[in-house]
């Protein structure tokens, strides 16, 4: 059993190392490329991801193939995400669909290890969140409720997967865990408020005002509950939990957070990727420490609510 404080120390050391390297690198890059120029985002995000992966690779002596497999998949996801926001978006979608079919197939045919299989299948499920968008006509892309439907679909997909694979709630930490429920919720709320406020200052959202406040509220609440549950079950509940069974705990938390950060490339802001990655590490540490998703889910959805409500009440 690895010592919890040691895992926290290792994880945070890795995070601060990558943050310092990235800040220096980004500052130098910024001297040559204007801030709002898109290639800056591409170069910065790619460099940050590769740097993070490189930090994981340092000191690896065993299970090299396993690490190479996950690093290769992470780089493929990075390419897919970058293509999705580029003018070559179709190639991003093709890689996406290919991975969704190939990853489970590879997992089942090449290994009998159930832990690895669930890890790879959870990555495929994460990618499904992009594919769902394809189902809707173009008019849908510009509507306020698109987010609700996308995440509602994702939740249905996750529950379907868990049902077919007979994965219990306990094995993905979807239960109370080993600490008081009230304490976990309060802690989650405090962390969420901090993360949400920081995220607001990174993104500076300007929210379009709906016709009535009740609809805004129901929209925000529904989206945030769905987003909080969907992303935490996928990243912390499935991916991180099963990675922890394959590699050292802090590597598992780190890798899941890097991929979580990658899924925020769409915001076109490199600092959002770094923030999501940092938030992923904190949520991952909570999930590990309490052996429960209560704190990460509470922090995630309260953070998102704060992010959206600040502009509604204080800006607009």
């Amino acid at each position, binding site marked *: 059993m690895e010592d919890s404080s040691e895992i926290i120390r290792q994880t945070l050391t890795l995070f601060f190392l990558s943050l310092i390297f990235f800040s220096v690198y980004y500052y130098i890059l910024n001297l040559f490329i204007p801030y709002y120029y898109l290639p800056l985002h591409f170069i910065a995000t790619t460099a940050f991801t590769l740097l993070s992966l490189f930090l994981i690779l340092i000191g690896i002596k065993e299970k090299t193939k396993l690490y190479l497999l996950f690093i290769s998949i992470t780089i493929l996801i990075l390419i897919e995400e970058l293509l999705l926001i580029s003018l070559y978006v179709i190639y991003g979608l093709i890689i996406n669909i290919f991975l969704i079919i190939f990853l489970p197939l590879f997992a089942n045919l090449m290994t009998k290890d159930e832990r690895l299989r669930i890890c790879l299948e959870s990555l495929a499920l994460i990618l499904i969140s992009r594919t769902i968008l394809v189902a809707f006509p173009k008019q849908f892309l510009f509507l306020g409720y698109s987010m*609700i439907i996308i995440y509602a679909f994702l*939740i249905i997909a996750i529950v379907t997967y868990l049902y077919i694979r007979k994965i219990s709630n306990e094995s993905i930490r979807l239960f109370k865990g080993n600490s008081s429920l009230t304490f976990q919720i309060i802690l989650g709320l405090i962390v969420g408020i901090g993360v949400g406020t920081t995220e607001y200052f990174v993104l500076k959202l300007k929210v379009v005002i709906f016709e009535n406040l009740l609809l805004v509220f129901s929209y925000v609440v529904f989206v945030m509950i769905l987003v909080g549950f969907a992303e935490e079950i996928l990243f912390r509940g499935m991916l991180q939990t099963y990675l922890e069974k394959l590699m050292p705990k802090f590597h598992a938390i780190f890798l899941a957070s890097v991929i979580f950060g990658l899924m925020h490339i769409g915001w076109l802001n490199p600092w959002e990727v770094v923030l999501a990655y940092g938030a992923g590490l904190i949520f991952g540490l909570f999930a590990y420490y309490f052996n429960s998703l209560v704190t990460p889910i509470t922090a995630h959805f309260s953070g998102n609510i704060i992010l959206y409500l600040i502009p509604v009440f204080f800006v607009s």
Partner: protein
Amino acid sequence: MDKIRLGLIVISIIAIIVSFFISPAQLVGLSTILGSTILGSTILGSTVLGSTVLGSTVMGSTILGSTVLGSVTLTTVYAETYLNTLINALYIAQIIIAVATIGLLIYLEITHQSYGNVKRKYFEIRNALLPMGIILALIFFTIVTLRAILVITG
């Protein structure tokens, strides 16, 4: 099915129903490519525009002004081009998903044990593809349904 999962499904269904009562408006997406689309065309655009005004009036710096203005043009042009590319890509991806899903469904059907003994390897492939096959079928069903609705409603 346990209470948590049932609860999640119920919330999802209620959310979809509630979404129909929300008036159409843009809102920035969260960690989806939708976010980038709207960010590119609205949020980023307006933020950059704010900087332009700052550049030309308060700062009064020609260099800063032209740099930011260049970025504004780039961002706006990029956002428009990106939207067109995205819409075309979505159509192509719909076809790819449709073909892949039909292929998967046929495979899942013919390797079912009710048609007789199936080789172990084929059965393993079936088992591997089953969850994603069902989820892709769900997406395919949505594509077809929405298409039908669009055609009927004109």
